[in-house]
């Protein structure tokens, strides 16, 4: 009843969810969900570039996400349009650029739907290594810089006065989100990655009284959503990404609708 591909997908999904917990919490705290969306959209351009130049897709995706993050930082220096407008332009431009580029590639075997919405069959043992080492790297960096990142999230000016290199931390956070998006893309797809970051974190918020607890709980709830979603996807032959997101949403709804004492 259990096939290799399903075990790969479950292992990969759980690995991604563990890392997405704390990172997703930062996305929620720092109101970066639109930024995450834009990075995710640029991942398709990464896929196109990767296929075109025949380089590793993960590397191409990370490269593209980084390019977009740096471009955004540079563009924020002008004062004519606001950041959300910039993000909207970049997200859809990079998605469209990716789609247009892919249409030029002759290889008809490229499954666009798999990239957009995730594919249960797409996870290979090689991807598991990416998730394992990428995840360990992100978790170690997060652990090492946790106090600084929390201080920066509370208030950037206060953190700067207290000696936190705020610009460096901000860039580091963007890099880690880019890395997670690259490895998560195969499971939930370009269009739904942000939900894997923000829904478990948002679900964990009312149950948490400290940032550490929220990050940990977000990881656990994310894992639950991935396992439930992927098993349902296998059982009912539904698309993998949307199934995981539906499971995450169900958890979110039941936590918010569950009667409980008012707490902050």
């Amino acid at each position, binding site marked *: 009843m259990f096939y290799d591909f399903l075990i790969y997908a479950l292992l990969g999904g759980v690995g991604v969810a563990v890392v997405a917990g704390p990172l997703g919490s930062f996305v*929620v*705290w720092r*109101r970066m969900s639109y930024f995450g969306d834009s990075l995710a959209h640029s991942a398709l351009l990464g896929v196109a570039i990767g296929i075109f130049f025949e380089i590793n897709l993960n590397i191409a995706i990370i490269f593209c996400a980084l390019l977009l993050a740096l471009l955004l930082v540079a563009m924020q220096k002008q004062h004519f349009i606001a950041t959300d407008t910039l993000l909207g332009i970049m997200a859809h431009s990079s998605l469209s650029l990716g789609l247009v580029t892919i249409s030029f590639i002759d290889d008809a075997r490229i499954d666009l739907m798999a990239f957009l919405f995730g594919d249960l069959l797409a996870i290979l043992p090689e991807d598991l290594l990416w998730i394992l080492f990428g995840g360990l790297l992100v978790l170690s960096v997060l652990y090492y810089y946790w*106090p600084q990142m929390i*201080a920066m*999230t*509370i*208030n950037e*000016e*206060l953190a*700067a*006065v*207290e000696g936190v290199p705020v610009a460096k931390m901000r860039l580091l956070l963007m890099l880690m989100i880019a890395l997670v998006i690259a490895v998560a893309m195969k499971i939930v797809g370009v269009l739904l990655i942000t939900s894997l970051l923000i829904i478990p974190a*948002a679900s964990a*918020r009312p149950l*948490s*009284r*400290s*940032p550490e*607890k*929220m990050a940990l709980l977000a990881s656990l709830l994310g894992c639950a959503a991935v396992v439930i979603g992927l098993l349902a996807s296998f059982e009912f032959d539904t698309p993998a990404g949307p199934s995981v997101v539906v499971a995450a949403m169900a958890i979110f709804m039941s936590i918010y609708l569950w009667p409980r004492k008012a707490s*902050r």
Partner: protein
Amino acid sequence: MNTDIVRLEQVNISFSGKEVVKNVSFNLHTNCITTLIGPNGAGKTTLVKTVLGLIKPDSGSVWLKDELVIGYVPQKLHIDSTFPLTVQRFLQISRDLPSTAIADAVASVNISDLLKSSIHGLSGGEMQRVLLARALLRNPHLLVLDEPVQGVDINGQIELYQLISDIRKQRGCSVLMISHDLHLVMSATDHVICMNQHICCSGHPEKITSDPSYIDLFGAASAKTMALYAHHHNHDHNLHGDVLPATLSEAEDSQQHGQECNH
């Protein structure tokens, strides 16, 4: 002996062509409370952020003593309600900070009972004390406070100024604070700098506690904790903020320092 810990020389700052700070020079000394006053938009916060290193001046120099530790209490700290945070966790500024240090800090600002509370939903005065405790945990040589009594009722304001004064006495640190209130009298300051883009005047707040009309007005008890900065400008401003020659009185003591700053 008091020595300089901060020196600003001929600092100019402008934002998109608008001059916010013009040719400002001043020094801060050890064990001295300096208060910046002036109307809204006078450039007080900008100047304080320059001292903090958050804003680089367009011209002029900012010198800080080597390894000067600064504790900063910002004007208003908005913490997003998506961020779960108790007062205790907020004060845990590093992993190796012992809980006894946090207990001492909250005790010194009288908020020990708030330690387990959520940071969301504190009153204005409580939040200021929490921020003050966080600043104190760094054992600062210089405490910088941007409008520390904002959003605090009158009694709370007197208490906060008294607390800042006590902290200076206990720790011997210097204090730089902003107030935009010309009328609120301050006993907790040794030196006042009045600015409106440039420095209009500076000096020590005149002790008026013996003045009978003052005691009549505020009562003897509050007279002990309050003093008025005698406010003589050597120039006036027109509606555009341009400097005009003085029309009424000449400043008599604008460059003198208070006793506590003896130098």
